[in-house]
């Protein structure tokens, strides 16, 4: 497999702030790659380094094996879908989509035809004559996608493209983006702070924190075997158990992650620990029960069929042995 984008010890400092701090990573061609992290973790800066809007303070970035040093954004084979779409307000939808072809000198008839084809692909056939201001958020998002894809980029960068959409639309667009990526076979690099989005769409994802990549892997890897306490907590709000508690439970004396959904409530002697119910949060499809065990609060998501405990009740918790995942780093 070819490497589409490669970061070699890349740093980007703004004064004393290390927005991106010694990041190395490889993105394989044709994958859906997610950059996941809280705001300010450096993921968007990494995207801007690929597109060329920003330049690394140190390190090298290669796009398809060629150095990106000194190459301005307009001469890179990558295109971006911007967070707030950045559609040109004075052009209609068709001209927006045809913009990239226009500046490359494509003949008018040909570029408008291609723009219409691309609009059909994103299911906006009849919207070519409208101005961006006349579209809904979801439609603008599709125009932004079409405008980038019409240039047939080798890498498509998406900067929190679904952030402004409501939940229902977001889920629909997630499916569409994923199937579009599979159909076109283009490398997608997707920046998001939404772990659910990253897990459900990505083939591979990198978790960012404070300018560094904390973990790279498949969604299953990252979710089930988080490397650090940060990843365990950020991806799926896992319980993070301290080393001494893990040792008591017969595990290694290391920080460990225990997924709330793999814990069940029991009252018999099989209980691994017992604690007091502190609170119950109703989440619609499930409940999240907070249980105080010694100094640690463990959150449990019991299966919908099991009866809910009451607040203040003393209950036992159990889980299968492989559910407790001990982490290598803090």
């Amino acid at each position, binding site marked *: 497999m070819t490497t589409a984008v490669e970061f070699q010890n890349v740093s980007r400092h703004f004064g004393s702030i290390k927005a991106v701090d010694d990041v190395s990573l490889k993105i394989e061609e044709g994958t859906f790659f997610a950059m996941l992290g809280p705001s300010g973790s450096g993921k968007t800066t990494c995207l801007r380094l690929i597109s060329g809007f920003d330049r690394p303070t140190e390190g090298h970035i290669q796009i398809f094996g060629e150095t990106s040093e000194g190459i301005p954004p307009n001469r890179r084979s990558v295109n971006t879908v911007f967070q707030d779409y*950045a559609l040109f307000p004075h052009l209609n939808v068709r001209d927006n989509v045809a913009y990239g072809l226009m500046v490359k000198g494509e003949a008018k008839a040909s570029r408008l035809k291609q723009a219409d084809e691309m609009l059909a692909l994103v299911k906006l056939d009849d919207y070519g004559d409208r101005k961006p201001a006349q579209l809904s958020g979801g439609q603008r998002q599709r125009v932004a996608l079409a405008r980038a894809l019409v240039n047939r980029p080798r890498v498509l960068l998406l900067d929190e493209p679904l952030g402004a959409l409501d939940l229902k639309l977001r889920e629909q667009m997630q499916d569409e983006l994923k199937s579009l990526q599979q159909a076109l076979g283009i490398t997608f690099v997707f920046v998001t702070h939404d772990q659910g989005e990253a897990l459900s769409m990505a083939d591979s994802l990198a978790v960012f924190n404070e300018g560094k990549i904390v973990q790279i892997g498949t969604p299953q890897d990252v979710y089930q075997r988080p490397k650090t306490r940060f990843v365990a907590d950020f991806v799926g709000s896992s319980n993070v158990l301290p080393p001494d508690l893990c040792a008591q439970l017969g595990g290694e004396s290391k920080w460990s992650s225990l997924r709330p959904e793999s814990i069940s409530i029991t009252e018999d002697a099989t209980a691994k620990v017992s604690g007091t119910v502190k609170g119950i949060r109703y989440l619609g499809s499930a409940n999240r029960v907070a249980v105080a065990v010694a100094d640690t609060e463990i959150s449990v998501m019991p299966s919908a069929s099991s009866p809910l405990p009451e607040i203040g009740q003393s209950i036992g918790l159990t889980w299968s042995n492989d559910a407790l995942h001990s982490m290598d780093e803090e």
Partner: protein
Amino acid sequence: MSAIDQPTSTSFLNRMSDAFWRRPKLLLALMLAPPLLWLGMIYVGSLFSLLIQSFFSIDEFSGVIQYEFTLKTYGELFRPANYDIIIRTTLMAAAVTVASAIVAFPVAYYAARYARGKIKALFYLGAMLPLWSSYLVKIYAWKLILAKEGIINWIVDGIGLTWLLKAILSIPVIGGNSLSVSYIGTFLVFLYVWLPFMILPVQAALERVPGNLLEASGDLGASSRQTFTHVIFPLALPGIVAGSIFTFSLTLGDYIIPQIVGSSRLFIGQAVFAHQGTAGNIPLAAAFAVVPILIMALYLWAAKRKGAFDAL
């Protein structure tokens, strides 16, 4: 028991405020009435009386105004002497407008895109400062600057470019004995005096262009020049048109600058001034004054048809 607690204080002001809240249109009408009356009576009224005057004529022998509707006065505008004044003024206004757009754009662009904090405050100060000092003082200062004994001549002399200045001044029509008595001089002073009126609207228009549009353009493969032509300029155009309305109409109507700096040939403003004053030919003065209004109307109509306001 009432469902809502009545306000404890029912002073007159409170009751007024409640009444306005219930009838928001009443408040709007009250606020708009004074300025509308002012505009309607003073401005539109005088404009209308001006328009009426221009349809009267003057008896050539007695110099008495004849209060009969006629197009004779408008016909006089097409006499070569008068027609020249209109063409001269319009060309000057167009030249001043184009030049101020060219000079203002980079300044406005810098202020909108790059200047921050103190530098930005300095920009506003720099753009507005000329407007704070007296118009007449500025023009007389320029007369001194442009005069044969002035600083420009002195500098040009010092760097040995007198031949160039002489060559420029020997160009027929726009040249003259010295800068201060040539059209070039008039043009430079107009440019200086009206420049802030171009910079500020262009800067405001550019300020509203989100930075990510420029990034998007570059991302889609546009060079800086293409981004300028296809994104920055169209989005700045409403600001340029707004600025050009100022520079164009102010030049069309001004009668002091060409009086002090320039050749003795008249501009529309001077013609209006002369005809309504010493000559006592109010109808012709009125007809002259209608010309800039017509030109501006024509200009705005053309700008709208060309789509200059599409980005608004």
